[in-house]
């Protein structure tokens, strides 16, 4: 199937409702051919539903899905050049590994079934298990077989539904590297659904962060991390310190914001809102911790009068919680490079950081913080 023209996958104004609940809300998305694309979001954000619509296992309520020139919105799942690695693998328990992998080839009456199956098994490094039954394999092995069973068909698009969710941390890391290698090797378009931001960032070229059936932001992992455009993204991808402030001035380069009596600057390009009330954000590792008396260099943003309320030594870094005069705790990661000072709990400190590491957002400061990211299910 890989020899007819593939092309980019387009979702246009796709909506999926279940009764009164809108799982996916007017979603428009282009996934370029050959890319490793991640749909990232908390459980219930609509990412799996989006994937199932691409696979043909759900029909969109509205909108269209096209693959290259071909409209596949209402095509049956078995008529799409798309294969899925299911969350629980869904290997056929009564067929052995070989027949599981051969299943798609046999349905399409492919030639050289044997050669292709053995190649796919070699790709996942499990050719010696060909005659075993799925029940005799470990979770990690089943995961690889599920991948081989999909990849062997050389689909235009390979869909991965939380494929690493059931594996332990060590195996997950290993499989992340493996998946990335296989994707590069076979050059297929991978659409990977996950709730694990680290997984999405390490593997994908492009990450789309989903929340409540909509895409919050889409871009390269570093772009999303360094310049989140919504508070949800700022909190869901890594940690963010968000402080409320008022815009008081702006010129061609920077916006000036008054935060709890302190004047701070943020580059215009990193200011995502025109509102007067803004949230100023900075990542914990961008903040420099200085002693109370220490002079802050001109041009840096800073908060003085902080008190260390918690310090956890974590090996590579120390994580500080600094209580500011208005009662808010900011998180600071200080690298253990052996040159900076350690600040015990109770120390008075000044926080400073580059304006270029500041971003400004509109909206609710708590969207997407860990506590409302429930443990993933289905």
């Amino acid at each position, binding site marked *: 199937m890989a020899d007819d023209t593939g092309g980019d996958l387009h979702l246009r104004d796709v909506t999926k409702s279940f009764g009164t609940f809108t799982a996916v809300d007017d979603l428009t998305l282009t996934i370029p051919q050959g890319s490793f694309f991640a749909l990232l979001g908390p459980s219930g954000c609509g990412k799996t539903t989006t994937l199932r619509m691409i696979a043909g296992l759900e029909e969109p309520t509205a909108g269209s899905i096209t693959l290259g020139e071909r409209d596949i919105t209402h095509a049956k799942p078995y008529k799409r050049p798309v294969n899925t690695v*299911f969350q629980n693998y869904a*290997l056929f328990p009564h067929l052995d590994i070989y027949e599981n992998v051969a299943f798609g080839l046999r349905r399409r009456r492919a030639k050289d079934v044997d050669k292709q199956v053995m190649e796919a098994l070699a790709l996942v490094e499990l050719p010696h298990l060909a005659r075993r039954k799925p029940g005799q394999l470990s979770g990690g092995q089943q995961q690889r077989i599920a991948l081989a069973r999909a990849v062997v068909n050389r689909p235009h698009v390979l869909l991965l539904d939380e494929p690493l969710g059931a594996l332990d941390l060590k195996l997950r890391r290993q499989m992340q590297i493996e998946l990335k290698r296989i994707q590069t090797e076979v050059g297929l378009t991978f659409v990977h659904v996950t709730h694990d931001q680290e997984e999405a960032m390490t593997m994908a070229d492009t990450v789309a962060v989903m929340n409540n059936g909509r895409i919050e932001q889409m871009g390269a992992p570093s772009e999303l991390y360094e310049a989140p455009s919504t508070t949800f993204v700022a909190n869901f991808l890594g940690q963010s310190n968000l402080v409320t402030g008022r815009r008081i001035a702006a010129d061609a380069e920077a916006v000036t914001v008054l935060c709890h009596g302190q004047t701070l600057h943020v580059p215009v390009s990193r200011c995502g809102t025109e509102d007067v009330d803004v949230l100023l954000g900075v990542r914990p590792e961008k903040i420099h911790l200085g002693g109370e008396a220490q002079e802050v260099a001109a041009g840096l943003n800073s908060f003085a009068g902080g008190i260390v309320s918690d310090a956890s030594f974590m090996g590579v870094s120390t994580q500080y919680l600094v209580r500011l005069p208005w009662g808010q705790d900011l998180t600071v990661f200080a690298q253990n490079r052996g040159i900076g000072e350690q600040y015990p709990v109770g120390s008075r400190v000044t926080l400073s950081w580059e304006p270029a590491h500041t971003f400004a957002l509109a909206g609710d400061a708590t969207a997407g913080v860990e506590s409302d990211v429930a443990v993933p299910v289905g």
Partner: protein
Amino acid sequence: MTTTVTTPGGTAGPRAARPAPSAPALLRARRWLGRNALRIYGAVAFAYLFTPIAYITVFSFNDGGRSNLVWRGFTLKNWANPCGAPEVCSAVGNSLKIGITATLIATVLGTMVAFALGRHRFRGRTATNLVLFLPMATPEVVLAASLLTLFLQLAPIGIQLGVTTIVIAHVMFCLSFVVVTVKARIAGLDPRLEQAAADLYATEWQAFRRITLPLVAPGIAGGALLAFSLSFDDFIITNFVSGNVNTFPKFVYVSAQRGIPAQAYVIGAFMFFLALTIVLVADIVRRRRAPK
């Protein structure tokens, strides 16, 4: 059987600590009983279950003449000529014919009903479940009487009591059992397997044929075996709706009044050992296929 049954006479402490030689006989007996109670209980239970079957088997070799109630000596002639008694084999033949037909119809219908109930949400689903349960809960003799009334009503349109009415009646009560058995199997089936099949280019029919059916097959086979044994065995309903057609249970019942011929024992023992063989073969096949 393990010997970990706690001895009532002693503690679970090391055996060497017990003053065994000087223990009174009563205590020793109690200890022995404690250790072997489970075995004895098991042996009694098996004896209780298998005595009738052993009796049938032994008396199938009895040189009994007209009545097979008293042991008169060993012979193989009953086994050599199982059709020797009048009407035995025609009755068995009818029972087999009815059993197979009813099983086929009930299994096909029941499997389809089970899929509808297990896989789809529709109006009247709960009601259907309840209605299917009713034949199992209704006293058989009540069903039999009402079926007879029904079939007599149908006489004017050409339906006479006979093989047809027996089959209809048997399908009716076997259906529920097939549905229950197959439905349990479908409930345990992951619907994502069918989705995975569809995702791997299998049409609806291919997904059913290659994935669903093989996985549900043990349930269907179980339902079919249950249906056959229920049908082959049935006396009450059959007796009401059979007209002058003779079946094996009916034959045995009727001849019981003037002495059951030894051939009936032969058939009974043969059916038992046939079933036993099927179970054993199935078990061996299953073990061979199971992971090594």
